[in-house]
């Protein structure tokens, strides 16, 4: 039996898949059996193959892939589509066994897997295999057509693996994405040392893949379901959260693009931090995002503008009306704009896409407008996790991130961003409408700014033909004056202190 002896230490075999190693707290149990369960099309085969490929490439651990259901050639060809050099790997590190049951095979009486194991043993020794995948083990078992024999043969393989000190990965189908419905092979999760359930659900017409460690003998593991995607480079698993990577602090301050805003947060944003801008529809969040991106390009720093649900041409046109001209930077390649339809994919896939864009563009500043679009499909929880990961990704890479979020409520103190992400934002700026004296003016306030002292006063935000500006604060009777009242006050102050100036000059201050 494979019961570990006292004093045995459980070693883990890293899968090389970041999020997967997080939820299993280090990878698969080495020299033991792991079961990957899931419905059809869940990604079991890809995940198993990827673990094998990563082991061969990064751990110097060759492996064997036994394909019971899919043609081995096709499994290998699938691997190629993820950029894995299967031809090269198959020369030395990975050996495929085509174990599809031939049609027309006649069955007469009992049989067992002794022969297969003898063959695999010889092969494993020949190539120095450390890992072996039995893909669609249920197909082999169903051939036996006898519950007692199925159980016996599975244990035979299980014990053989333990004797050979091979790390075994079994994949098997379960119906309805639930392990207990796999009555037929219900004993499998009990036998395995580690059992992982993959599932695929459709939420709001968008498919969302999740992965969950059901059991892990002798090891703690993440209990929760975590989203994952099958991207162009294979399986990518969302982190189980809880991990808050430390980033290097930057002392350098960079401009938000609006000088007065920089002043309000103590001299600009710290590089590598992030700022959240919230506001209702039409408040001007995209304008501030555009200004921030333009400032980055003006400094000669590469930038990325990710826009959900609005196309790049409309954005550049709208920004041009307030003298934010992104076209030349787009032309020079300093700026990349990417418009993404939020409904087109799950939040997880959006994250993957943004991650790829970051890798391609290598920006120093990023604007994501609005990040709240992520929650429109696939549910808020997944979207929040994705938003968090995006923030950590940028922070770790030293990228300064500006992201906007639609705020549904009017009271900024009752935070109603759909993702509740303000807690992890370094700075948070709110644009609200101030209804006063028959006018509706935009009011800007800094709700938080980590590591800096910031203005607590409400300021009027003005979008003009020549740019964005923030008005000087004028108060009267405990109220911040805005709009006409502010202009009257400004004019009065100016005529007192110096010769009269033309109205509106102040408006342009930050835009220069």
């Amino acid at each position, binding site marked *: 039996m494979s019961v570990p002896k006292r004093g045995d230490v459980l070693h883990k075999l890293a899968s090389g898949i970041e999020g997967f190693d997080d939820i299993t707290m280090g990878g698969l149990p080495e020299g033991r059996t792991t079961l990957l369960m899931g419905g059809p099309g869940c990604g079991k085969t890809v995940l198993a193959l990827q673990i094998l490929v990563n082991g061969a490439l990064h751990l110097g651990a060759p492996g064997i892939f036994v394909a019971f259901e899919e043609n081995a050639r096709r499994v290998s060809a699938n691997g190629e589509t993820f950029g894995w050099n299967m031809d090269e790997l198959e020369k030395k590190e990975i050996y495929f066994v085509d174990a599809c049951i031939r049609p027309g095979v006649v069955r007469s009486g009992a049989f067992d897997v*002794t*022969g297969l194991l003898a063959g695999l043993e010889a092969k494993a020794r*020949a190539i120095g295999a450390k890992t072996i995948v039995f893909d669609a083990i249920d197909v082999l078992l169903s051939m036996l057509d006898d519950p007692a024999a199925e159980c016996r043969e599975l244990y035979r393989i299980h014990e053989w693996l333990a004797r050979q000190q091979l790390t075994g990965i079994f994949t098997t189908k379960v119906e309805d994405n639930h392990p207990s419905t796999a009555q037929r092979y219900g004993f499998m999760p009990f036998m395995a040392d580690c059992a992982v359930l993959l599932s695929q659900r459709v939420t709001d017409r968008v498919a969302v893949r999740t992965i969950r460690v059901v059991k892990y003998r002798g090891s703690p593991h993440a209990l929760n379901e975590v989203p994952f995607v099958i991207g162009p480079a294979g399986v990518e698993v969302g982190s189980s959260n809880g991990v808050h990577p430390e980033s290097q602090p930057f002392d350098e301050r960079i401009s938000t693009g609006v000088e007065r805003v920089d002043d309000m947060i103590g001299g600009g944003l710290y590089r590598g931090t992030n700022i959240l801008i919230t506001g209702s529809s039409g408040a001007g969040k995209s304008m501030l995002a555009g200004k921030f991106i333009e400032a980055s390009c003006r400094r000669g720093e590469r930038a990325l503008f990710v826009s959900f649900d609005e196309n790049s041409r409309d954005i550049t046109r709208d920004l041009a009306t307030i003298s934010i001209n992104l076209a030349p930077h787009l032309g020079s390649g300093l700026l990349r704009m990417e418009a993404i339809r939020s409904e087109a994919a799950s939040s997880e896939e959006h994250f993957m896409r943004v991650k790829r864009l970051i890798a391609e563009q290598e920006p120093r500043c990023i604007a994501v407008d609005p990040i709240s679009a992520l929650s429109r499909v696939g549910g808020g929880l997944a979207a929040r996790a994705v938003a968090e990961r995006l923030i950590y990704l940028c922070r770790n890479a030293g990228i300064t991130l500006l992201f906007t979020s639609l705020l549904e409520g009017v009271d900024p103190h009752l935070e109603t961003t759909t993702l509740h992400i303000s807690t992890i934002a370094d700075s948070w700026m709110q644009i609200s409408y101030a209804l006063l004296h028959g006018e509706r003016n935009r009011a800007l306030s800094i709700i938080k700014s980590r590591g800096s002292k910031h203005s607590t006063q409400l300021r009027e935000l003005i979008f003009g033909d020549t740019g964005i500006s923030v008005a000087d604060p004028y108060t009267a009777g405990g109220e911040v004056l805005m709009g006409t009242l502010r202009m009257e006050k400004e004019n009065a102050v100016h005529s007192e202190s110096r010769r009269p100036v033309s109205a509106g000059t102040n408006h342009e201050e930050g835009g220069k």
Partner: protein
Amino acid sequence: MNESVPTGDAPKGAYVFRLYLADGAPNSVRALANLYAICRRHFPDSHHIEIIDVLKDPLRALEEGILVTPTVVKVSPEPELQIIGNLSDEDEVLRALGLPQREMA
């Protein structure tokens, strides 16, 4: 334990079988006995059995796509036929070989 003569030497029209077994395993031992019995009964003068012990030649079975033991392959007459199991169900074997089953024989 490939005790029999090479397949090529079998007389024309003979039944040629290749039996992959794991020497000593209960199912394999039974399959060997059953296959001999079937051959003696149905084609006493025109059969040939090649035995491959997968424990002695493990890679061969793997490369030839043999997954379980025992597996018997009818090499000739064509077409090739694969039967898995210890051959305890003789009727099933005869049906697969296109021979009349025992009740009728």
